[in-house]
């Protein structure tokens, strides 16, 4: 897993690729904390290169969503496909994030 944060004006994009599971989710927590602390309010999570996600990875993204929303911001998730898409659909997160 690699997670790359890019800030452009108001917008922040997190590109997460590879494997977001119980092992690697620990590594994105500090990045999520920083996005929230910086009060970035237009966040896009780009998962086009994400190969596999599990419930801990989903939990981290939901946590990002809730905290950015609490700051008055928005989180969109883009690029979902294959296994990650199946998980997001099962957990009905496709209605939450404008996928």
């Amino acid at each position, binding site marked *: 897993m690699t997670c790359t944060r890019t800030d452009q004006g108001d917008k922040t994009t997190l590109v997460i690729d590879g*494997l977001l*599971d*119980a*092992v690697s989710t620990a590594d994105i927590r500090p990045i999520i904390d920083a996005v929230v602390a910086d009060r970035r309010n237009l966040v896009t999570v780009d998962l086009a290169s994400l190969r*596999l996600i*599990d*419930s*801990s990875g*989903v*939990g*981290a993204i*939901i*946590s990002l*969503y*809730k905290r950015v929303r609490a700051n008055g911001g928005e989180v969109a998730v883009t690029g979902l496909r*294959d*296994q990650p898409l*199946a*998980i997001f*659909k*099962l*957990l*009905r997160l496709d209605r*939450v994030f404008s996928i």
Partner: protein
Amino acid sequence: MIYVRIPGNLRYRDLAVRAVAAASKLVGTGDRHFDDEVVSAFGEAFNNIALHGYRDHQGEVEIEIEVGADWLTIHLRDRGASFDVSDIPDPDLDTLPESGLGIFIIRSFMDEVSYLAGEPNLLSMTKRYSEADHGGTRP
């Protein structure tokens, strides 16, 4: 029959998931969704053993996979803490829970799930493939 024994530790998650993915391909459905759902369910079951079952001591996980013509059964055995899978309620997805999703993923993606507490604990899960069904059960 495929048998894998590894430490019940997240370090070995990737190895186990890859073995299960390869086993799922042997069912020969040619359906990526089938394989994705098997891998998703297995990954949650392995996480739970590593994080809950073996929270207080280390131990091994035994993974047994039976590959049928249009089905696959995975048995997971561990000697960690036991629990009662039927005690675990489905999450309320509307509240956007950040945890407690693993068992729900397992139940949703597999057709049969059973758990026997003991020495070892035994979690068994079966997924069947049927092209007709499949269109309908796609989330």
